[in-house]
């Protein structure tokens, strides 16, 4: 038998608590593969966010700190300052990064902290049961925008990559999605780039990943793929927003 893929060594055999069809699980797998490929498991410290990915320490075999909601970039800043030779990975959801933690991500980016940020944008608050996020689309119904989000009074969804490009100390910004195999492969390449940038001392690098939350969106896993294809990518266009290399 020819083994093409095995489970990454940096990931536990425990099954995740993510819902069926959730994008977080795909991102986790990609991170695991890249950690193995780069051989950095024993050199890294991961910051887990508050959100569905909070228990990342149950899934990953590396040092992990679970941060307060939105504060991972501040925690990671300190980790990197104390251990400049270690690889520090920041993982955040959209409520975590683009609502409660807006100040922390903007200032970590503005200081040009040499960090690798994985930003999982699923346009909703998954963990708390599907409330409106700063990235929720116009017209999208959530438990706290039952008639659909309106620009008036709720504002328009925040495009984080575009926002961060204006900060001159950011070095690499890319948006990808995980709703198809082709895009998953692109996402893997982007994550790898963001990892290698830190290892090469390039500076603040982030990949924003459009990700499915079928349970929060109240659709089937298949429909959630369509939602990204038909609704999300027109407002959040994938692509490289900054590459100063």
């Amino acid at each position, binding site marked *: 038998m020819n083994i093409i893929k095995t489970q990454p060594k940096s990931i536990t055999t425990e099954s995740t608590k993510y819902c069926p069809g959730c994008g977080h699980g795909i991102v986790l797998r990609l991170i695991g593969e890249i950690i193995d490929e780069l051989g950095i498991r*024993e050199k890294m410290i991961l*910051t887990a966010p508050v959100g569905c990915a909070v228990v990342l320490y149950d899934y990953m075999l590396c040092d992990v700190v679970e941060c307060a909601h939105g504060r991972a970039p501040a925690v990671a800043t*300190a980790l990197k300052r104390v251990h400049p030779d270690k690889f520090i990975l920041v993982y955040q959801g959209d409520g975590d990064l683009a609502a409660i933690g807006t100040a*922390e991500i903007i200032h970590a980016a503005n200081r040009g902290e040499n960090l690798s940020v994985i930003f999982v944008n699923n346009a909703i608050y998954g963990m708390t049961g599907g409330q409106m996020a700063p990235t929720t689309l116009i017209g999208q119904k959530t438990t706290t925008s039952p008639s659909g989000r309106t620009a008036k009074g709720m504002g328009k969804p925040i495009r984080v990559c575009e926002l961060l490009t204006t900060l001159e100390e950011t070095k690499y910004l890319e948006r990808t999605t995980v709703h198809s195999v082709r895009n998953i492969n692109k996402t893997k390449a982007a994550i790898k780039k963001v990892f290698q940038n830190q290892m090469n001392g390039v500076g603040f690098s982030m990949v924003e990943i459009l990700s499915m939350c079928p349970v929060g969106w109240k659709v089937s896993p298949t429909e959630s793929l369509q939602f990204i294809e038909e609704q999300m990518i027109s407002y959040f266009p994938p692509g490289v927003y900054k590459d100063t290399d």
Partner: protein
Amino acid sequence: MAENNIGSDSKRVLLKGNEAVGEAAIKAGCQCYFAYPITPQTETPEYLSRRMETENRVFLQAESEVAAINMVFGAAAAGARVMTSSSSPGISLKQEGISYIAGAELPCVIINVVRGGPGLGNIEASQADYFQTTRGGGHGDYRCIALAPNSVQECYDMTMNAFDLADYYRMPVFIQSDGIIGQLVEPFEMHPYKPMFEKLPPKTWALTGCAGRKPNVVRTLYMTPADGLEQLNRKLEQKYKKIQSELRWFENYNCDGADLIIIAYGATSRIAKSAIKKHNGNGKKVGLFRPRTIWPWPDVELVEIAKKNKNVKFLVIEMSMGQMLEDVQLALMDIVLKKDILFYGMGGGWNPTPESIYDKISETLKK
């Protein structure tokens, strides 16, 4: 943590309380300092911005107190000696992070140079953050050790002690000073770092990358009581009980045989002492009981003194509407009538003078 002596032997120097705190942190081997400017504590970040740079350590002016305390959380998790400083409104903002630090059992030092409140209040000295500091402050069942200096010397010594206590007990330790003590300039003995303990527990839990060991996890989430949160709460409770039995610092000035005992800490204790010195010799004897730790509170010692002195009255003086007063009432509730525990104080940045305390003493003793 290796002893880190900078400079040679002791020398007498003149510094502000807030600067002495900074120098003590340097001497105690503080590797990282994160803060956000606020009066009346800004001398500490200003002083440390220079000193940390010359020592090649981490100084970072954060974007907010929220970010600063989460940087403290990160540095502590990474195993570094770390400190932050602020004043009342900034400490309120830090409370979520302090709860996480206490829950994750990480060591750190937090300086609160208390100012008038509530709200933006004013920049005058105050002691109105007593409840916030001694009752935990943030959410959940936890405590912080709180040392209360009343001189520049104590700002220096206690800051050094704070690092040791934080590492020894694995928890946040407060230095609770105020606008007067922080701004006070007086000579003090700047001695090398004096460790409190011969050996500190190794930081085997620190995040350093998992080479050659199992991964370390720093967390505070436990989804069910049985999952570990009940256990964590019991463990913390035991730790706090141990500290209560080991760490009750106080000063007894003339309390033996006193007719009146003033109870005050920080700046008010200095002012009270001047008044007492002026008063003694007027026939009646006045003493001062000064808690040097405000958590844990030296209740056992106060009770001992109260038992010895029959008919003694107590006068609690605070720059607040009466917060430590409750700890005094609790300590003495079985042996002293409530009417014999008097209060003199005011909130909003008010401070007593030696004269006003002198008058208060005379009035109380006449009754």
